């Protein structure tokens, strides 16, 4: 094989530099992982949606209990109803510059659980939601548009999950609507970004919705910047 002196030196320098990255005293910039939180048993379907999608795409992620959340680039909290156990992790991650995707699981919760969920969102994260809306009943009599229209970070139409939590007027950018109702929000919090999903994405991922999968996978690198 013919190799010029310049090519040889190029390879040699590359090899040495690569080797140095693991040596003591040198800084290794490993990307922080994506973390999927397991909050409760009822979140299984949604958790399976996120973890299955991340696994298939080859994304490095951890699936952990709230007490074991490490420093991460993205924290996903699927189908959350009682946020309390995850609150410390959410706040820490936001302060640390991470993106937190907080997916509400309260659309099917009973009245008492929903009230507690709404109070926790309001008091701890300043996210204001209205009572769950049955989208199929709400749209009956009109042409049915059973999709959540995402406008950020790119447009996507994702099948709704029958019920959603509409968002009240509040600071932040509305990133998705269903039948005109704002259901997803993006807001800077400290050094991080909070993304609140009032219409769950996890079950759509779990059921193999291609656009849901694309939305998540295209969005992740943006969240990790």
């Amino acid at each position, binding site marked *: 094989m013919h190799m010029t002196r310049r090519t040889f030196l190029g390879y040699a320098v590359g090899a040495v530099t690569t080797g140095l990255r693991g040596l003591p005293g040198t800084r290794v910039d490993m990307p922080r992982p994506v973390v999927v939180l397991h909050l409760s048993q009822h979140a299984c379907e949604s958790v399976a949606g996120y973890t299955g999608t991340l696994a298939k795409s080859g994304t490095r992620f951890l699936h952990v209990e709230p007490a074991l959340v490490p420093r991460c680039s993205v924290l996903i909290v699927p189908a959350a109803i009682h946020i309390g156990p995850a609150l410390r992790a959410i706040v820490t991650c936001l302060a640390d510059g991470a993106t937190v995707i907080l997916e509400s699981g309260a659309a*099917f919760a009973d009245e008492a659980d929903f009230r507690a969920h709404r109070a926790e969102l309001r008091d701890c994260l300043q996210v204001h939601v209205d009572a769950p809306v049955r989208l199929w009943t709400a749209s009956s009599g009109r042409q*049915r548009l059973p999709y959540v229209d995402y406008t950020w970070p790119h447009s996507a139409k994702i099948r709704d999950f029958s*019920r959603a939590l509409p968002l009240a007027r509040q600071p932040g950018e509305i990133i998705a609507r269903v039948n005109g109702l704002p259901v997803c929000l993006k807001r800077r919090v400290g050094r991080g970004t909070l993304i609140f999903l009032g219409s769950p994405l996890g*079950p759509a991922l779990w*059921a193999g919705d291609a656009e849901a999968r694309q939305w998540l996978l295209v969005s992740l690198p943006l969240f990790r910047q």
Partner: protein
Amino acid sequence: MKKSIGDNMIPKEFGFERGLELVKKAGFDGIELWLGDVPWFQMATSDTEVRELRRKIENAGLVVSNVSTGLHWESPLSARDPKVRTQAVRIVERQIETAVLLGTDAILVVAGLVTEEVPYNEVYQRCVETLRPLGEKAGRAGVRIGCENCNAEHRFLISPREFWQFLNDVNSNAVGIHLDVGNIHDTGFAEQWIEIHGPRITRIHLKDVMKKRGRCGDQSVYTNLFLGDNNWPAIRAAMTKVGYDGWLIAEMEARYRYARDQQFYDTAQAMDRLISGRL
């Protein structure tokens, strides 16, 4: 093969005990109990009361062929609402429990319900994941879950190969197919379903179907044996081919308007002809 008929066929004015007499007198060997569809067998019926039902059935000279239910039309395993799914699972569990109490080894489950609101992929995935643990539970109890092919009615698992794949995905020896030869309508041929599913068939529901009618108001698309479009010689031959020797259960949707007990006698005789192959 043995003949059975659903207790939901018993005319209301008969009541359970007189209904059992009719079933026996008409020539049936067993009875299919419909959880939630008849006043004597509800979700709230206690174990003691279920044992009492068994005693009455055995005193009438019958046995229980299987436990069915129509409750999953209201509470499907595929519902999005977790509370509804929990109830749906509880219904299956109660079917398993009562099957053991009643001395039978099969239950019928309507596996999922595709609707405008809950799309196919979700229903499929949810049913597979729900049926796996239920299959384990049924297996431990010595009971087999037969998922009924409701085809057009639940808009799910329309073809026999699709149903086969579904059972592969559930991957449990305790979960098979409760094959209804009337439900296939225009979407195929019952004899082919029998050939494809063979040993996975837990029970067979019998009724005939007028394939070209479709549902038309109150008029049923289903009819009595030999009055419709099913190819009964082919169905009988397929049963022989796959070695099916289990229960045949009459499930008539259209009822006689007069002399309602006569339907039991006519159906039992038609089933005898089918079993004997004199077609």
